[in-house]
């Protein structure tokens, strides 16, 4: 547009530094509020609608406040098998966590400390395991599981989830170990430790928070996985397999209640281990 008169009005002298600082602070606070709202508003709506009666959920306008009608919640609590499914979900997620660390951390250590032929290809292959969609793999897996007796067990499902979580476990632990100078280990060797002792006494304490964080990551991957869980388990359903498939064809008020049932345990878990998550980012930033 007509830029000349505007340009003439601009004062050609530096602004006080405080101005820029204030503007920066405003953007910073606005971004924080936006990020918090991004997470909290959907959760709030989920909880409010869970505690509302069916008529309020479909009705409009909405009050935005819960009326503490427990109908939807009660329906869920009485829905047979929810407790068992919750237990199965936990079991599978914990197993996945353990397996992916037991397999992933040594791989990450090897990648960060050793040069070996095919190292780059190995790193690529690890990520490749995520390249095949589960619906494609589920059929042959299920056939094999039925034949080997792994079918419908927490162990079998945890193995599948471990495959899904492993790339992340390997890559996260790789960056953890890479962030710790090899000189620390070498110093330990010169002071009389053997390789294993140096690892356990020097390296492990440093990476433990990060490892726990990547374990949490494996936990959430397993917790959220639906397709393999619903094909590979029958009586030992996980909560997602148990609920998600039925929920998306259920009335709105039950969708909200089911959503809460799925979100709440994960929220509690993440809350319990939050400091390890922060620890991981601290290390990754070093």
């Amino acid at each position, binding site marked *: 547009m007509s830029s000349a008169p505007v340009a003439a009005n601009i004062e050609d002298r530096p602004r006080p530094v405080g101005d820029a600082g204030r503007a920066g602070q405003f953007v910073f606070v606005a971004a924080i509020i936006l990020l918090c709202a991004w997470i909290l508003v959907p959760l709030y709506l989920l909880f409010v609608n869970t505690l509302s009666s069916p008529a309020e959920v479909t009705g409009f306008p909405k009050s935005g406040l819960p009326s503490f009608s427990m109908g939807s919640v009660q*329906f869920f609590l009485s829905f*047979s098998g929810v407790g068992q499914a919750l237990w199965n979900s936990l079991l599978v997620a914990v197993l996945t966590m353990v397996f992916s660390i037991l397999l992933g951390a040594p791989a990450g250590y090897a990648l960060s400390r050793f040069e070996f032929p095919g190292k780059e290809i190995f790193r690529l292959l690890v990520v490749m395991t995520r390249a095949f969609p589960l619906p494609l793999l*589920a*059929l042959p897996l299920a056939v094999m599981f039925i034949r080997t007796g792994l079918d419908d067990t927490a162990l079998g499902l945890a193995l599948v989830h471990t495959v899904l979580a492993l790339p992340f476990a390997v890559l996260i632990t790789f960056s953890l170990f890479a962030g710790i100078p090899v000189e620390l280990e070498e110093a330990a060797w010169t002071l009389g430790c053997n390789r294993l002792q140096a690892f356990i006494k020097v390296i492990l304490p440093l990476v433990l928070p990060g490892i726990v964080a990547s374990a949490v990551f494996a936990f959430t991957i397993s917790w959220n996985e639906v397709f393999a869980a619903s094909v590979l388990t029958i009586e030992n359903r996980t909560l997602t397999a148990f*609920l998600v498939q039925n929920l998306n*064809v259920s009335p709105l008020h039950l969708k909200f209640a089911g959503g809460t049932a799925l979100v709440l345990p994960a929220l509690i878990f993440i809350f319990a281990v939050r400091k*390890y998550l922060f620890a991981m980012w601290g290390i990754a930033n070093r």
Partner: protein
Amino acid sequence: MKASARYLISTAFGLSLTLGVTAGAGAQVLFWSNQAAPIEETQAMREQVLAGFDGQVDFQTQEPGPFLTRLDAELEAGSGAIGVVGALHGELSNYTESWMDLSGLDLGVTVGPALLELGRLGTDELKYLPWMQASYVMAANVQALEYLPEGYDLDALTYDQLVEWMEILATETGSPKFGFPAGPQGLKHRFFQGFLLPSYAGSTVTKFRSAEAVAGWEMFRELWQHTNPASTNYGFMQEPLLSGDVWVAFDHVARLGDAFNQRPDDFLAFPAPAGPMGRGFMPVLAGIAIPQGAPNPEESQALAIYMMQPETQVATLRATNFFPTIDIDLPDDLPNSAQALGAAITTMTGSDDALPALLPIGLGDLGGQFNQVYVDAFERIILANQDIAQVLDDQANALRDVIDRAGAPCWAPDAPSEGPCPIE
């Protein structure tokens, strides 16, 4: 912090050690179903229908994806956990070879001969028991009736009259009031396969791109002008009907029932409209089959027989809004949904111009792609407003491809064919 991290890890190890490989629960029959999947229906099936069975039943519902994958896996492995399968006719017909012959079972009830014929799946054996049936109807808020033009009979409505009525309704009330389940979970493809095309072209496949079919799509495009635009988000029409966003809607009876049960005086059901070729409608038939590798065949058969008993069939109707397949008198105290929707179905199937269009038969696992052809046609013609004849020509090629790959012969209302069903 380090200590608690160790604690967490050791707890994790401890947990994993305490778990053994969990074994199956023994004599329990697994009822693997993709019907009655909404969570309230699942609950009702467990508590009201299956509780009376003399034995243990585990009723599990699944979406089509995992449902079929699991079934495939068990049939391929030759053994598994599934004792009884409950699914639609079209899905059961994909596995004809895998089902146990049920013709020897003593049901003690009379099943309609036409339904039994479908249950044979073209063989000499009874491959599945016709379990329950349903269809699609129209539902209207009683307020909408005030705008119905003089002399129009709801029970004998034509599509042109419906368009006219909806136009009046939209103009008088200021916003479009027709609702159509065009959302991701909606059964829109069934409307095109079983209602629109049969009513206009007298065919689902053969005359897919005929001039008559074009006329049908033109009518639907006009109807779409008076359709609530939120329809592309609707899955179950009972919800927009209850919230008042929509006054007149088309859907599966099981997806309308809640509206009739919550506010029985506010809604009424009526047959789907008729086109130039008749009143096309699609019956829905669900069946019960037993896989040949079922872990406990006697128990499975006992359960299948139990599901066909009059009391069970009535209980199933109450739980799911699917109607009995056997010859019985329905009790008077049925829920409002069953009464209203049942009457509309009876009127529709018994009308003079009734033109039943079956669910797709013989498509195997290509059923999803078959549906996609109709959904794509809908999206291009109605949502993207493309030229109807051009779109139908394109989609006819896709349709021919699916039919040829499946080698599926024609099914009603198309005339029987030798080899794959042709598209003119």
